[in-house]
């Protein structure tokens, strides 16, 4: 038996992150993620097919309205695969964000009754949609074969983009979930917030259209990258479908914003953590 000693006392100022403790609780993280994955499609007829159906049906609707009718353009790609490749990271992000933002309030009974590093809760709720992502990703591969698109060596950047999606979703999720504990307004803001964010991200339309627009007016293009999802979605298409070669500055801006969100999110979360059990 290990002989540990801890002192429980009021904490002051910015507390340390205690990532080692989070590591000690990695099994709990695993079990909570596993629970979310397991429970998600319980008592549904279609089960995990929903993971594919959601982005796939959205893709069809987008193709009809934006691809055919509005003709927003798709960087020379067939619109279905263009939008589906954008929808994949977007869905992962949007699911992760909304689940993690509501995660603390949804686990109020855990917060009030048991101790564990609170970060486990938002992290596990961002990890669970990752499983959906991989299922839906398989469909993208099928579509790529169908359209005869072979990704080049750039595909090695895909893991980095996944990490970026994760840090963005979790970073925002940590901010919002901690706020949600005190202000249930957040719950009503989130769906709206995600909807706006979708239109600010080049999922439906190609980023090149925005670039042209910005260049014509002398606005630096990298500003578009301040929305980290711009870099992520463009990056996805870049490494899988081979579009958009001038997005380096975008990528840098998105990465910086994403990591800043993540780091500030962790600290904000840790700071607010001490009041969770009393307020939730």
């Amino acid at each position, binding site marked *: *038996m*290990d*002989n*540990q*000693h*801890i*002192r*429980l*006392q*009021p*904490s002051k100022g910015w507390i340390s992150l205690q990532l080692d403790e989070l590591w000690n609780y990695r*099994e*709990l993280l*695993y*079990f*909570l993620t*596993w*629970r979310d994955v*397991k*429970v998600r499609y*319980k*008592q549904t007829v279609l089960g995990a097919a929903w993971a594919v159906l959601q982005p796939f049906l959205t893709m069809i609707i987008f193709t009809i309205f934006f691809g055919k009718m509005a003709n927003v353009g798709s960087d020379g790609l067939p619109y279905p695969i263009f939008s589906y490749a954008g929808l994949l990271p977007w869905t992962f992000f949007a699911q992760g964000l909304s689940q993690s933002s509501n995660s603390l309030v949804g686990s109020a*009974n*855990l*917060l*009030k*009754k*048991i*101790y*564990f590093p609170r970060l486990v809760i938002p992290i596990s709720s961002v990890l669970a949609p990752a499983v959906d992502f991989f299922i839906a990703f398989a469909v993208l591969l099928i579509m790529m074969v169908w359209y005869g698109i072979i990704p080049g060596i750039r595909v090695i950047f895909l893991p980095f983009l996944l990490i970026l999606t994760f840090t963005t979703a979790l970073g925002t999720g940590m901010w919002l979930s901690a*706020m949600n504990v*005190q*202000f249930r307004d957040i719950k009503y803001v989130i769906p709206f917030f995600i909807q706006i964010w979708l239109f600010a991200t080049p999922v439906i339309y190609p980023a090149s259209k925005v670039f042209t627009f910005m260049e014509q007016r002398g606005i630096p293009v990298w500003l578009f990258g301040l929305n980290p999802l711009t870099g992520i979605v463009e990056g996805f298409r870049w490494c899988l479908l081979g579009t958009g070669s001038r997005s380096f500055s975008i990528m840098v801006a998105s990465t910086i914003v994403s990591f800043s969100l993540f780091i500030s999110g962790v600290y*904000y979360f840790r*700071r*607010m953590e*001490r*009041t969770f*059990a*009393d*307020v939730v």
Partner: protein
Amino acid sequence: MTDIAIKIENLSKKYLIGAQSSQYDTFRDLLMNGLTSPFKKMRDIIRGLPTGAAGLTETIWALKDISFDVKKGEIVGIIGRNGAGKSTLLKILSRITEPTEGYADIYGRVGSLLEVGTGFHPELTGRENIYLNGSILGMKKEEIIRKFDEIIAFAEIEKFLDTPVKHFSSGMYMRLAFAVAAHLEPEILVIDEVLAVGDIEFQKKCLGKMGDVAAEGRTVLFVSHNMSQIRRLCTRGLWLKNGKCVYEGSVEDAISSYQLSFLNNNDTEADSGFISWRIVNSKHEKPHTIYDEGEVEVEIILVVDKPILNGTFALVLQPSDGNKIAGWGESGIKCDTGTYNLNCRFSTFPLRPGIYQWYVSLWDGGKKIDVNNLYPELVVSCKDHSTLKEPWAGFLNIPCSIQVYKP
């Protein structure tokens, strides 16, 4: 290396409650406040100041200047009425919430059981919930695997292991939840009122398990309203009242001073429930022992904190192994708040010598007020009329002479 498990020094916890801070004087103030307050609040959120639900002004000290030490291997019972700060103390010790002032030093791994079945998911099966709940309680995966069979045997749910727990009866659910929790093996165990689950049989099993835990030399902090459980399990008692520690010492003394406070002081203290019992007409010293088969008058003391409109009282006599010998009841009881005596007169008490127990229950309409064993046990110490001395000869003490002859 000390033999101290928990050292608590001036521990205090403040909560914010109740009233909103300011009153609006005019409509203009109200309007202005409505427009500006979101911005003020925004500022506070970013700074991490308490606002909104937490920005209340009235405060209450749930705990104030609590100091005590717990030695390794001690079983401390914490008693006190609702709102005395018992649960707050346990919450601080299990790191769920921070103290406002003071500190507590904890030496060893703490496992806390503030609720049975925390984190159970209704859609998951019994098996899955064992893993989930176990890991939430702080067990490692291999530890859960190792104890898996023990847990299901304890919970008696082998057949339903792969059924989602939402289809469980509430009894099965609680048994499973407790079984997982009972197999937690921390050095310091913090328990809040969780033994009150399941039927009497299961409660006994739980108490037994807790006794084992205690016997293994682990440190336990135990909150309960059930004095008999406290008396049975604990070696020390701590009585909290309005956030302060009123008494700390032996279990018996803590309980009796706590119970005495009801009797002296009808308007304060405690939720409704049975407090104690005694034999009124005993000619001898011990008020819990019967010496002959004659008339017995038993007085049960009941504290009522909410008026009872249509009470049903039942009294059951049990041998110490938990079967039932006889039962009596009374319905249509009306009580205001205060302390009551329930006087039960038995014209005869033909029981063989031994140790028995009173099991009492009080319901108001369909609402449970208190269901409990009364302590101490009843001792019958009269002459045994049965010629067979073995316990299987039953409980009744009826004189009988047997003659054998040819008609």
